[in-house]
């Protein structure tokens, strides 16, 4: 019961509408853009998995510092290589869509920021996060001292139970008070 790359069945389309926050036009557009990423042979196979390198050529993801993490989080492949099927791609777009709820956005944001996939944001995760945000070049990076201070400040603010890490509910608490999160955590094709 997969999707052949050429056409999206009507039943499947209405099921996708039921299960995601996307409208019909958005799902069809996503299908079009996804099939553009496939090679000729792959187009005939159902449920093809597109490797992460090709997904990362999409202009919406190309400039994003978290692009590799995003692919990794939404990927359902057993090899954990970040490859996405069309359904994974729809999950991605649904979580990043305009009408997605705060809960689902914050849930996925947490998973994206959790670089070592251990279920909490500890100092290592936060450090990698800051390095992603400050860009690749050495001029823009923070010094070790500044990094230490920054991480201390963050843990002071968000770590309510003082265990040295930020878990999912603490993260959701911080995010729910932010006025910018919902509007900036958006990707639209």
């Amino acid at each position: 019961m997969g999707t052949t790359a050429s056409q999206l069945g009507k039943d499947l389309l209405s099921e996708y509408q039921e299960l995601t926050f996307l409208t019909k036009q958005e799902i069809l557009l996503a299908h079009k853009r996804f099939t553009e990423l496939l090679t000729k042979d792959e187009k005939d196979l159902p449920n093809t998995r597109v490797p992460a390198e090709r997904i990362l050529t999409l202009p919406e993801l190309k400039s994003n510092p978290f692009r590799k993490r995003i692919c990794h989080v939404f990927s359902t492949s057993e090899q954990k290589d970040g490859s996405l099927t069309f359904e994974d791609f729809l999950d991605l777009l649904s979580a990043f869509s305009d009408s997605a709820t705060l809960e689902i956005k914050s849930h996925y944001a947490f998973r994206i920021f959790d670089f070592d996939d251990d279920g909490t944001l500890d100092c290592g995760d936060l450090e990698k996060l800051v390095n992603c945000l400050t860009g690749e070049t050495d001029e823009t990076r923070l010094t070790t001292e500044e990094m230490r201070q920054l991480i201390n400040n963050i843990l002071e603010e968000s770590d309510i139970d003082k265990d040295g890490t930020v878990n999912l509910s603490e993260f959701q608490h911080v995010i729910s008070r932010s006025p910018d999160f919902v509007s900036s955590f958006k990707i639209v094709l």
Partner: protein
Amino acid sequence: EDELEEESEESEVRPESLSPEELEMLKEAVYERKKLVQGLRGKPWPMKEKLVTLRESQEFVEKYEGALGKGKGRKIYAYKVMMSKKWMKFQRDFENFKTACIPWEMKIKEIESHFGSSVASYFIFLRWMYGINMILFCLTFGLVMVPEALMGRPYGTIPRKTVPRAEAASAMDFAVLWDFGGYAQYSVLFYGYYNNQRAIGWLKFRMPLSYFLVGVGTVAYSYMVVIRTMARNANESGVGDDNSFNFSWKMFTSWDYLIGNPETADNKFASITTSFKEAILEEQESCKDDNIHLTRFLRVLANFLVLCCLAGSGYLIYFVVRRSQKFALEGLETHTWWERNEVNMVMSLLGMFCPMLFDVISALENYHPRVALQWQLGRIFALFLGNLYTFIIALMDEINLKREEEKIIKFNITMWEASLYNATGSENSTALPVTFHPADVPRGPCWETMVGQEFVRLIISDTMTTYITLLIGDFLRAVLVRFLNYCWCWDLEAGFPSYSEFDVSGNVLGLIFNQGMIWMGAFYAPCLPALNVLRLHVSMYLQCWAVMCCNVPQERVFKASGSNNFYMAMLLVILFLSTLPAIYTIVTIPPSFDCGPFSGKKRMFDVIQETLESDFPAWFSKVFSYASNPGLVLPFILLMVLAIYYLQSTSKSYKEANVDLKKKLQTQNEENKRKNKLAALKAQTDLEEARAATQTAEQKNNNASLQHQHGETSSFRVKIKQRISFSPPAPRTLHPDTHRSLGYLPGGGFPQQREPRMHRVPSLQRH
């Protein structure tokens, strides 16, 4: 649920064979499944899982819903089910249709990907304003302009609808029309054209009542929309400006995922780094005491200079308006174009140059850029407000002048009529009805139309200034920088003047003030909303083009405030302040005697009284008069004030309760850690004892069955494990969906944080 599924596997469910309780349970189960399906899209599961759950649930629902339907009242039940399915499908299609109808979506998306969400927020705001103005336009056009044009008396039949004989020669000139005189003045566009007949046409359309109610309705609708949007924003984004999560928000929410352009991304990286470094510095800086007196003195000086500026600009406007009155008395044709349009040009030029002056003065103050931006916005706000109110005061003077004139003209008219009667009476002894052409009747100076005209002229000149500034300041500058760069000594693109950035806050302020002027003048010139709709439409296309063509992304992304509510609050203040003058004029000044829908009444709101008396039954007006009694209104106001006080104190107590709960969480966690430590220590000592015991036991009985001892030690280990597996700490159990949230994938595959393993005993930092 599981029981019922088992039942179905065993035998075909016969609904008739089920007892009523089982029927109820079945209904419950079906309802639960339906709810599950509705909530599926909000669950963070991969699509495969969701599909499987969806299909299972749908099968279950179909099977049992059909079966339920065979019981009592099945036809109605089946019908209800079908209707609800159709209704859901209709709702979904309607949502799709609504999203497709939103105009300019692709344009805005393009801007978002190039410039980020703060520049795009201006365009979203513009589009929202366009929507509001469209509604206002429909109201004024449909209920005021069209009825008068179609059902009122046509042009030329009565004096107020005809161009006076003196102006008739120049009534069609372009210069006069551009100035909104001539034929434009004597049309449905302005207040003066409307007749005061109580009911017009075969519909008996109450024209004066409709005019009044539309005026009130536009203000009421605007209030409702602005406050509703503010409430929605406040709900979505927590409570306004909260500074307690500064660093965390910078970390988790500062990246704009809409950015698709590498250049913009680089800019964003740079600005994020700068903001981190600055925030860290701020945190480290205790009070920097060097030269605090000098700084204070400079700031006071700067504020003094700004006040001088504001006072100067206010006086200039007043002076110019009085001068234009003098010109009007002498007749407009004798003056140059500049002198005729002096007022509008001065106001627009002040609006353009004073903010730059404020920018220069603020260099004295040495504030943090975000604070400086807020001061700048506040000053520009004060400038615009001051200018607008000075303009209105000058206008009030003019209104009073016109009213004096009116008295003289009334006197003249009686003389003129008397002369007419005398002239005909001398020819014929019987009193014949005097025929005269409406254009010849001496006309009162219609102050309401004059006010409407002033506002229309102001808005047109404001629009022209904005567009010309855009073309010169942005486009011409970009062209010069691009093409002169080849033959100039220094790099024009990197140094001065370089390409301009899009000034979000300046543009938003301009838009807000424009809307304020529309609200002020809409009662006297029903054509204003239509004009504004046209202006916003053109603005959208022009500014979208200009931004993509001539602007570069901002280097430092400073928002004036974190939330949209800042601009909404300003809009609300402007709405309030701009309706005040209109309300004042309606309530205190008597309308002109010979023009407009309220001519002949003592006050404009008398039309309400008139309608209540003549169109409604007698008891209704009694009730109304009781309700508007001050004795009733004052206690009501007092009650509302008390309610506000009560709500404020409850919210304070909630905040305190919040802080208490946080403290409790912390102490609970510390308690748990302590207990863990103790238990682990105990376990460790027990383990060592066990080890010692096994060693001695081994030494004693070398040949004893190892299984038996292994059993002992393993039972020892089991006991120890039991001691260590304590309940998880308090915060986790607060989460409602525990068994799903602790592991990301429902089947496991993620380390679950339930039982700490024994090898983790030494490091008890996390469990």
